[in-house]
């Protein structure tokens, strides 16, 4: 009964609505622990899905599920302290929606049926919208409206993509359940034209949710307006889940012998996202928006790596893990900064190194990590993607890739140095930092360093098995 990983957060979410605030926070952490436990059991193969016609254990799904579950635990620990410092009118709603959100994301990672995956991704939109609207300000309202509107259009187009895939099945004269695993087995008999059309719509639809340019416009607003623990979840977990939809579609195309077509589309979207992020990150005035653009960039990197194939695919999977760890850590630190200075603008902050030494350490280390400095894992993943791309002879693409990385580093470091070292005009600290709100950030960063030095064999084998389905491998 691997479905318990979905059911438990859902049920505890319902109970959290009716519980007093303090108890609700306890439930949040407890559920996170239980979820991680069940996920690990699923990893060890102790439990399997009870409804195999809709859900399955796929390698890439389990990888994303583990990452989600892991960061959720630390984010929920952080949220306990964060929520007691902020004034939120309806905290039970926050707790409940976070748990529902976890439940729907779990459903995405386990989904095998095309329509179940689609429903799950739609459900993540619905469950996360109240999180973005939590502060009930005008800007939060606008961000939520944009988020719901743009993602709904995306999800509608993804449904169209599902129709086309089913259409290709009809034309091929195949009668199998509409699941990725059974379609993958007969992929070569599917009608290629409709399959390609379906892929384009699926990538546009799920890519909207993933934050691929040019459909990314909701992302900076939503990530900057949501309370920091929710931003961390959106960036570290939700984007991966949307990527899962894209990945499964790409897998189907690869099995059907159309891997070049879908790979090139992914490379195009990936490079465009990186370039757009590189251009826009220069003009940012808010640090949470800066982090959001960095998420767009990193999703672009993952799409690029998957599109390239070979060694780069391995790099992309590593990147997915490390981006989630480091980015959610950064958003958690950004939450401390927001509590401390009371503003999302870089200009209102400053001299973090003196005023908030713990947060500064986590934030600066996270920034170094996300920019690709060792000993953090993104160094390795980006290096592998670049080597993989060069191996495949993609000279122009890889130069654009490197250019975008440099631009983003330049743009982001300008803001980060200002936040950390520039003198602060108004050195009034609203909320002091404490260990409860910095330890989760450190733990996530430490996880990234640990995985960089020592990657457990089961994770390594799972990544290899996942990328083998799209023609990736460590031997190029």
């Amino acid at each position, binding site marked *: 009964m691997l479905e318990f990983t979905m059911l438990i957060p859902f049920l505890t979410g319902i109970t959290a609505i009716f519980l007093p605030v303090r108890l609700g926070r306890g439930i949040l952490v407890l559920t996170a622990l239980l979820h991680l436990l069940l996920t690990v059991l699923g990893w060890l193969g102790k439990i399997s899905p009870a409804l195999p016609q809709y859900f399955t254990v796929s390698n890439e799904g389990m990888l994303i599920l583990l990452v989600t579950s892991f960061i959720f635990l630390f984010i929920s620990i952080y949220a306990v302290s964060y929520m007691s410092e902020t004034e939120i009118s309806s905290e039970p709603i926050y707790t409940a929606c976070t748990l529902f959100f976890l439940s729907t994301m779990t459903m995405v990672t386990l989904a095998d049926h*095309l*329509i179940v995956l*689609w*429903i799950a991704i*739609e459900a993540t*939109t*619905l469950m996360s919208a109240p999180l973005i609207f939590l502060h009930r300000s*005008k*800007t939060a*309202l*606008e*961000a*939520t*409206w*944009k988020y*719901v*509107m743009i993602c*709904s*259009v995306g*999800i*509608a187009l993804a*449904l*169209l993509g*599902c*129709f*086309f895939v*089913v*259409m290709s099945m*009809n*034309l091929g004269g195949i*009668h199998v359940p*509409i699941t990725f695993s059974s379609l993958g087995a007969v992929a070569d008999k599917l*009608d290629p*034209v*409709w399959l390609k059309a379906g892929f384009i719509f699926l990538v546009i639809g799920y890519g909207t949710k993933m934050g691929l340019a040019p459909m990314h416009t909701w992302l*900076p*607003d939503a990530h*900057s*307006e949501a309370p920091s623990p929710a931003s961390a979840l959106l960036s570290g977990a939700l984007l991966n889940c949307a990527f899962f939809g894209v990945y499964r579609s790409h897998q189907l195309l690869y099995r059907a012998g159309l891997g070049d077509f879908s790979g090139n589309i992914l490379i195009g979207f990936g490079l465009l996202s990186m370039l757009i992020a590189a251009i*826009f990150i220069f*003009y*940012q*005035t808010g640090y949470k*928006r800066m982090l959001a653009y960095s998420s767009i960039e990193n999703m672009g990197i993952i799409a690029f790596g998957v599109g390239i194939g070979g060694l780069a695919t391995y790099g992309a999977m590593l990147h997915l893990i490390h981006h989630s760890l480091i980015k959610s850590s950064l958003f958690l630190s950004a939450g401390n900064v927001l509590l401390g200075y009371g503003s999302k603008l870089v200009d209102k902050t400053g001299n973090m190194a003196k005023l908030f030494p713990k947060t500064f350490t986590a934030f600066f280390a996270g920034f170094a990590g996300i920019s690709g400095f060792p000993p953090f894992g993104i160094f390795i993943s980006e290096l592998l993607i670049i080597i993989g791309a060069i191996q495949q002879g993609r000279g122009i693409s890889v130069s654009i890739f490197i250019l975008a990385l440099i631009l983003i580093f330049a743009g982001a470091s300008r803001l980060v140095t200002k936040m950390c070292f520039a003198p602060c005009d108004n050195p009034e600290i609203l909320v002091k930092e404490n260990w409860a709100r910095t330890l989760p950030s450190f733990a996530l960063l430490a996880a990234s360093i640990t995985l960089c030095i020592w990657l457990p064999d089961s994770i390594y084998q799972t990544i290899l098995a996942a990328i083998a389905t799209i023609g990736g491998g460590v031997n190029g």
Partner: protein
Amino acid sequence: MIQPSNALFSINHISDVLLSLTVLSVLLSLGSNRLMSLVKIMAFQGIVVSLTPLFLEHHEGLLENTNSIFLLLIMLIIKGLVIPILMYAAVKKIKIQREVEPIIGYHASLFAGLFFILIGAFIADRLHISLPMQNELLLISAITTLAAGLFLLMSRRKAITQVIGYLMMENGIYLIGTALAKETHTMYVVEFGVLLDLLVGIMIMGIVLHNINSSYNDVDTALLGQLKDN
């Protein structure tokens, strides 16, 4: 392209009439600036669109299947009754009568609508080879509805008009689904489009609960338009 038929009121004729009405309602909605009439047009379009599968040649077995009839009825009630009533309530609540200063004017919108019909015809013509049935009018009107909905969504400022655009786009997707559906198991995939109506319902509820008037860049209300990259 359209199959000639001997009987005057053959099943194909009725579906053609319904599809023409759909395209007509699309053009009407592109040219209309009163929100109340837009809501009425959408109710009409919802009914027409949800009735279309009944009169399609390649869905003839539909009437014998109780499940399909049931699903069709649900679609009819949601698209033709529930959503329009919700929208009606929303328009009453936010007390705005008309769309002021659309991003793209009404004449230009109408022209764009005609252009979408052309595109639809072009695409339907190109796909001719691999389609299971002959009813190209269905595909043309479906693509027109989809494109016009997307256009309406992007070219209007009021939140409620954007929702109407989304609804129209969704109708287009439903039509495309029915155009492509042949086997019974495809029909059930198409019916999941009803979940998009759920999204529409939630958006309208958002409008009603939070009095959202318009989205970005509107100076008059200035409710939505604070978040920018600068």
